């Protein structure tokens, strides 16, 4: 127990680092994923090809390789940013591919008749999208997006190994102070559990409020 109380400051710093990383990367992933999903269902072929290529390549890239390329590669182009920003970029881009697929699957669950009915009522494209298709897609998209974001929180551990302040990285500091290594990891594990359980609770709440009645 005293591993936690003695090093509470280090743990809190790491915990907040993971939380921040998860939050910003989630926002980037949701925004990029939305853009890519709209590319993938666009009536313009070149946008569809671009979206498909983005998803296929990123889904099959090991995240470590992406971190390696972004954190150590982009500075070669003279783009020098703090490591946390690079980490958010890598995590966000990676997760955006999965968010995109979840959103696209959600749009495809809306029956064609819904759009046809909306158009025959004289709705414009924007109205069809914002009043009919997206609200229905949103309902079925909550659980897969939730599990994707939980996975993002877990994957953020990789950033710690690339010297970003983050929960997993705290083991080094605490280990050097000579504390029991097993208990150090137990508290790290508890930290991750808190974050993943919180996201899962949040999405359960959303699902109960807006989800599809089955």
């Amino acid at each position, binding site marked *: 127990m005293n591993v936690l109380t003695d090093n509470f400051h280090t743990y809190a710093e790491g915990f907040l680092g993971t939380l921040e990383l998860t939050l910003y990367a989630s926002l980037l992933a949701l925004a990029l994923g939305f853009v890519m999903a709209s590319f993938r269902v666009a*009536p313009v072929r*070149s946008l569809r090809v671009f979206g498909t290529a983005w998803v296929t390549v990123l889904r*099959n890239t090991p995240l*470590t390789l992406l971190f390696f390329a972004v954190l150590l590669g982009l500075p070669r182009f003279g783009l020098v940013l703090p490591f946390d920003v690079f980490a958010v970029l890598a995590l966000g881009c990676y997760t955006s591919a999965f968010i995109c697929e979840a959103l696209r699957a959600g749009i495809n669950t809306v029956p*064609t008749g819904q759009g046809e009915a909306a158009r025959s009522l004289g709705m414009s494209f924007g109205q069809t999208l914002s009043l009919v298709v997206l609200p229905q897609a949103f309902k079925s998209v909550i659980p897969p997006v939730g599990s994707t974001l939980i996975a993002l929180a877990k994957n953020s551990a990789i950033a710690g190994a690339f010297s970003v302040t983050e929960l997993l990285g705290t083991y080094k500091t605490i*280990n050097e102070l000579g504390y029991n290594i097993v208990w150090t990891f137990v508290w790290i594990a508890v930290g991750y559990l808190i974050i993943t359980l919180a996201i899962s609770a949040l999405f359960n709440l959303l699902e109960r409020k807006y989800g599809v009645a089955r």
Partner: protein
Amino acid sequence: MTEATALYDVPGPHTRRRHAVYGVLSTAVILALVAWLLYLLFDTGQFTYTKWMPFAYEGVQELLLRGLGNTLKAFAFAAVLSLALGGLLAAGRLSDHRTVRWPATLVVEFFRAMPVLVMIFFIFVALKVQPLPALVAGLTLYNGSVLAEVFRSGVNAVERGQREAAFALGMRKTQVMVHVLAPQAVRAMLPAIISQLVVALKDTSLGFLITYEEFLHAGKLIASNLDYDLPFIPVVMVISPIYIGMCMLLSWFAGWVSRREQRSPKTEAVVPATAGPGALLPGGEPPMAPRP
């Protein structure tokens, strides 16, 4: 459009013309992006002779191949062991005995909730294990737990009549599981299982972080060599197509199996799982069999 969505009507001549204009514009933007990237690459001198020279050396090629071999070795161990562990844990979770079912459930839920890297670091740092066993053990625990869920949902998705018919024939519960339920479940869940193996293959790159001498590690060695003018971008340009290609090949295989299973009479009693949108995501939910 390849698939009908609720979004658009069949376009008329006016709309088609508009879409063609959008197409030309967006193609131009994408091409400009690619050109800008290429310009950046040339501008920062990534295609100079010194930076690409190391790949002509036999020693460097051997280093890369050895790294690739180590990656594949870790993947093979992790794949076989996690399939075995997955089978074991699934059998535990499906057991009739509470004393077996609860520990198995606990193990599966715990390892699924933990980031795989935390497991690997714990085994590597706290238990002071060599890099390869640590990597394989971490991957096995995580992927085994996920595969256990895949197997279990496959078995549960087999049509109820199959189990009932087998019991009516006088089979015992082990026989029912081994001869009737498990074969159909595995066949139907094969795409999901292969997708999970892609995740395992991608995660072998985590070995780089615990100094296991795998593919990325070999790349890092070459990239940080001053004699070759730090050929970092060339190394990434060589390594990533190989890595991504391997994963793509395996996921394409999963898709192929999935398409094949969908017209196979052998999986009639259970709806085959498709390699769904969430698959391939490390740390994601295990793909579940669709409810019949």
